[in-house]
């Protein structure tokens, strides 16, 4: 007679039903937490590591980032008479070491994370796409 136990009152099921009903009727603090991605985006943390950016005026093209990159992602290339890093995003693991080792604080990482592309070649971000102009402090 194992079935004559507490189970036949179905209290477990009824308690569960009450919990789910509270979710359906939005009783209490039960917000919908989904972010509808292409239409709305989550707020990023300031330390988020996305696509690189290189300060055009600060960078001296020393190549320390190239040496320190664990994946060999960075290459120093010539761009308008000066030398700047070129980043292959397809190999990058966004560790941020290049930012840490830069002696001039020229390298930084932005919040841009929508980097999917159609070919491996277009994942190589040259100085033309990485450089930004920061006002030189007098």
């Amino acid at each position: 007679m194992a079935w004559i136990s507490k189970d036949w009152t179905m209290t477990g099921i009824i308690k569960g039903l009450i919990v789910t009903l509270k979710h359906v009727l939005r009783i209490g603090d039960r917000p919908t937490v989904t972010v509808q991605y292409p239409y709305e985006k989550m707020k990023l943390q300031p330390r988020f590591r996305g696509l690189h950016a290189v300060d055009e005026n600060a960078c001296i093209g020393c190549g320390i980032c190239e040496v320190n990159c664990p994946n060999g992602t960075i290459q120093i290339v010539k761009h308008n008479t000066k030398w700047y890093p070129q980043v292959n995003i397809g190999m990058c693991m966004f560790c941020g070491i290049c930012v840490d080792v830069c002696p001039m604080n020229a390298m930084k990482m932005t919040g841009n994370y929508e980097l999917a592309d159609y070919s491996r070649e277009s994942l190589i971000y040259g100085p033309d796409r990485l450089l930004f102009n920061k006002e030189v402090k007098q």
Partner: protein
Amino acid sequence: MFANTYELIVFILNFIGIYNPINDFFKMLGIEYVLRIIIVLVEIAVLFVFILLTVMFLTWMERKVVAMVQARYGPMVTGPRGLLQPVMDGVKLIGKEDIIPAKADRWIFTLAPFLIFIPALLVFIPLPFGESLIISDLNVGLLYIIAISAISPIAILMAGWASNNKYSLMGAVRAVAQDISYTIPLALSAIAVVLYTGSLSTVDIVTAQSGTWFGFIPKWFIFLQPLGFILFLIASIAEMGRIPFDFQESESELVAGFFTEYSGMKFAMFFLAEYAHLFSVSAIVVTLFLGGWSVPFLSFIPAALVPLVSLGVFLVKTYAIIFFAMWLRDTVPRMRIDQLLKIGWKIMIPLALINLLVTAFILTAGRF
């Protein structure tokens, strides 16, 4: 109050004044039965289109209810609040390749989706959707419904066997075991209702539930038969094959149960049949226990509006039962197959028999 929709349509046509000219035209040609056939075909077409639209809406509703329980949005992109998602699903499924496995029994494999889909629609023939909104008031309506529902295990077994796949066969065997064990308490608790009405006709069952006791309790059989209602509800959820009794397609054990090998439009037919079954079973629960289309407190509606109002009342009650099934699905986990059969044979059937016995005793002794 008309016996069925045919008479209602004839009355409306007469009211507009076009029934006699059309009838005379056909009588002149000597084929007056053609008009009757046309009217019946139109009725059935309207019913099936209504059922299919409801079923499409139900797939959307299920996803929305699951999403609300799980603090998500559910489908949101296609149409307002994702309302056109079923249409997109249908378009996608029509575009899919129709694969028949190499070692499958082709003829039975192709026949099974139709055999499960057509009974799911035929169940609606003797169901009263509202006052005089019934295709045909069979005097064995309830027996017809239970008999037609009993075809679906055969179709499931055909699908599982013809797929030539271990998961399909296991799912089909489980589904048949489940359906057979739960049809018995289902029929027994329905018979307890029939003892009160003395008729198997669904219209008689609904009219027996109109009116109130003491002016405020509606005369629904749920108050006379609370145990019968619970047994019927549990048995019909098991018949539908929904969580907590979804052994025929338990995803974590058998890939998709008996329709593992199906793709494209055949898969869609199984899917639609599942939701048509959900709708029909909820409609049967409403008809038997919740008073069908009868409204106890609104006896002052103008007679012309009664079919529309009763249709609305019927749909509200049916959607309440459907919501309960979805709500239960989102709450409880799946049982084990031995627990299912234990509950079915050791608890449900004895309780249903006791319920029948007590009902018969009360009716014989006291004339309730």
